[in-house]
Structures are given as C-alpha cells and as structure tokens.
C-alpha cells in the first residue's frame, strides 16, 4: 500500500514540476522534445568503449536541472526505480567479455566492465532526459509537440489518456487494497489466494470507469481526435536553444572533447 501511495505521489510531483515558470519551462514544447530526441539518439549511438565521451553528455541533464530549478534528489530517485532493468541487462557483460580493455597502472579493466559502465551511463542519461522533458513540459505539452511533429493522433490520444488515467486507476487500486487490508488479519501483504479476486475486482472497476469516461467524452463530441488548446510561439532564443544543444551533442558524439580540452589546456600551460 505504501509503495502504491509513494508511486502515486511521485507521479503527482512530476506533473506539478511542469507548472514551474523557469526559462526552460517557458520554451516551446516542440523545441524541448526536439532537443531530447537528438540527445537520445546521440547517447544511444555512442560506442560502448567511449566512456569519456558519454561523461560529456552529462552536461545536458546537469545544466537543464539547474536552469529549470528541478529537485535533483527526487529525479535521481525516480531514475533509480528503473535501474534494476538496466542492471539485469548490463550485469552479464563483465562475465561474458573478459578481454582486457583498459590498463590503469596495475589495474586491468576488462571490456566487459567497460561495456557495463557504458550501459549504465546510457541508462542514466536517457531516463534522466525523459524525466527532465516531462518535468519541464508536462504530458500535455509533450503530446502537443508530438501532434505538431505529425505523430499519428491515435498514439497521442492513447498516451494522453493513459497518463491521465494512471492516476485514477491508482486511486481504484488503492481503494481495493485498503479494503482488503482493513479486513486482513495477518497484515502481511496480500495473500496469494486473494490475488485472483482482487485483480478481478480491479479489472471490473476499471472497465466500469473506462465506460463512464468514454461516455462523458462522447457526450462532449469526442470523435477519436484529441484537440488541445495550446499556442506556442518560437522565439529566436528557443531556436538558439535547439541549435546550440544539437551542435553540442554532435560535437560530443563525433569529436573527443575531453581529449581536445586536455590537449588545449596542457598546451596552454606550457
């Protein structure tokens, strides 16, 4: 029950963050979505051994979180929720590939460990960039941007309603579980014998609710297309934001910035 409630609060908090008024929040949603997409493509196409290059990409989330005044710890906690999935994929690499990859003094790092680090870094960057997008744009902003980018209506409608109704469904689930726990004698979670009936209850309730919501939509003229009331203007600053980040991502992806920076700095000191 507590897990359910904390997930519910997290969802609400992310939604509320989107109502802040920072300079990042005020940028057009299409621009933010565009930057996020270019960032994601850049990150996932990094070669596994280029850890230094991937580290450069952390500039983006760090700057965005600071400029948008987002809570660091909260976002990191949300990121960690997904960590076990990435860990499940990456954990086998050190055993599968024990070829030497890097020698640091007397320490030999295998290629498996390097690719493990690369997967975990990519996981952190991609999840964090998604969280930053939602926390600075809101789900309706993301959906507006998707519509502008000509993503099919069906997909956008599903996304918007799914996000909205996750909250209501969690309410329903909370009620079902609370009703069970108030009458459960042991108080130690939900007994496996009750899972079937609880899930059945939950399914029936959610189907009823879906029917009522759909009816409310039909009565207000819903014809399969969600229309959002959003007017966003592109300023020269927002275009600069898009171009600036894209140039940085491409540079980070195709040039070895840490190496160049180090060379320039050491050259400068000489």
């Amino acid at each position, binding site marked *: 029950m507590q897990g359910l409630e904390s997930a519910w609060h997290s969802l*609400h908090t992310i*939604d*509320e963050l989107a*109502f802040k008024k920072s300079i990042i929040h005020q940028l057009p949603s299409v621009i933010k979505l565009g930057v996020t997409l270019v960032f994601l493509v850049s990150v996932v196409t990094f070669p596994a051994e280029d850890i230094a290059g991937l580290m450069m990409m952390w500039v983006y989330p760090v700057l965005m979180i600071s400029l948008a005044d987002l809570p660091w710890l909260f976002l990191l906690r949300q990121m960690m929720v997904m960590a076990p999935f990435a860990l499940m994929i990456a954990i086998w690499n050190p055993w599968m590939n024990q070829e030497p990859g890097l020698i640091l003094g007397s320490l030999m790092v295998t290629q498996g460990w390097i690719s493990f680090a690369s997967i975990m870094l990519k996981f952190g960057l991609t999840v964090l960039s998604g969280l930053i997008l939602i926390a600075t744009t*809101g*789900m*309706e902003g993301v959906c507006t941007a998707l519509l502008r980018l000509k993503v099919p209506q069906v997909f956008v409608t599903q996304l*918007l*309603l799914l*996000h*909205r*109704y996750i*909250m*209501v469904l969690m*309410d329903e689930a909370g009620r079902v579980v609370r009703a069970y726990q108030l009458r459960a004698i042991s108080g130690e979670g939900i007994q496996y014998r009750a899972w079937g009936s609880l899930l059945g209850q939950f399914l029936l309730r959610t189907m009823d*609710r879906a029917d*009522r*919501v759909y*009816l*409310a*939509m*039909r*009565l*207000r*003229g*819903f*014809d399969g297309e969600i*229309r*959002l*009331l959003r*007017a966003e203007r592109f300023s020269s600053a927002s275009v600069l934001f898009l171009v600036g980040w894209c140039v940085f991502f491409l540079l980070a992806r195709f040039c070895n910035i840490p190496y160049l920076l180090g060379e320039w700095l050491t050259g400068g000191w000489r």
Partner: protein
Amino acid sequence: MSHHLVEVKGLKYTYPDGNQALRGISFRITHGEAVGLVGANGVGKSTLLAHLAGALLPQEGTVRIGDYPLTPKTLPLIRKAVGMIFQDPDDQLFMPTVGDDVAFGPLNMGLPVDEVEKRVDEALALVGASHLKARPPYKLSGGEKRAISIATVLAMSPDILVMDEPSSALDPLSRRRLIQLLRTFKHTKIIATHDMDLVLDLCERTIILYQGEVLADGPTRELFQDEALLKKGHLEKPLRLQGCPVCGGL
C-alpha cells in the same frame, strides 16, 4: 423556444442481463422548468438520464429533445442541446488541465480557437473558477471538481442541463454554493438526486419514479407533503419539512 422542450412517451428499456429498468415512462418538461427526479436506488433514474443525454437510445417509446426525436441520426444535435453532469466528476474531467477540459467540448464542436478561449473563460467565470484554469483536475477539492464539471458543460452552451446526483460527496458549504450557482441558471434543469432538500430548493416540479415507472409527477411542495406517497417511493420528507428533533415542532 421549443428547443428547450423535453418530451418522453412510453419509454421502455431493458438491459442485456434482463433487468427491465424503464417500464413505460412518460412526461413533458417545458422551457426553463427545473424538475427533480427522485426515487429509490435502482428505479431507473440513471437509465432515464442516459436517454435524455443521448447516451442510450429508446428500445420502445420516444424521447424528444426540442425539435428532434432521439434517433442515431439526431444524436449530435441532441448531445449539443443537452449538457449532462455526471455523478462522479472524476469521470467527467479527463484532460490534463482544467482549461483543456472546459475547452474539450467547444473544440470538438469545431469552433475557432478565439471563440473556444472566450467560452472557456466565460464558463469558468460563471462557476467562479477562473483561477483554476491552469490546474490539473485531480488536484482540486470535491466542490471545485463539481464546479469545473458544470463549466465543461456550460462551455458548450446547452439548452438543457441534466444532472446525476450533483450534490453527492460535497461538504455542506460546497453543496450550498452549488445550489446557489444552479439557481442562477435559466436553462431547463433535470436533477436526479436523493438530496430532497436540494430538490425543494431548486425544483418547482418533481417526478417520483418507482420500479421503472412514474409514480407521481407534480409540484414539489405538494408531493413532499404526501407521506404515504413518499414512503411508497422509498423516500422521506426533506429535513426542512420534518419536525424539530428537539421540540418536535416545525
């Protein structure tokens, strides 16, 4: 002004599970009337409202809203003329923000964006909720949700308002505000409720349903004095018409 007329003749409806919810209901509601629809649980109030709002089609009998009979072809016209306010505002508020939710109907009507924005602002101002426009609906209190669900319907400029238990789950002050708000509307109003005092406050006419049929149809004050009739309909006098619990006097 015949578009404010609601006429139901011999309406029958049986659910697929065999439950006969409506067994031949007839009444006629004219322009600007406020009518309370009362009765025990399961007498067919919600089924009747679903017909009036164009959510169900008659299996037998006719429903006429204004100049149009309720048929599959006239559904868009009927749904434009009738605004339905659901019992649970959470069923009605599904968009990310209050402004989006109120704009949902007008946008679907194909109105230009300027007109939609005007309607949204007017509807929110009418229910005293302009300050909630940018808020997500799930963050609102019960009373605020109810006000917004009314605004979502008002923004479509309906002729007739159909309400299912509008005062349920509201605190006493929110309930009183709702009554005051509804009193200002000049629409034809049909209110299905168990809140007998609300009916007494708002509706000059009441229809009592009993086992899928009309048990009584007449002036609210007259019907609410008839204790035998109320008892048959599983109802009670409104609290205001009952004796004082201390001295027994009215």
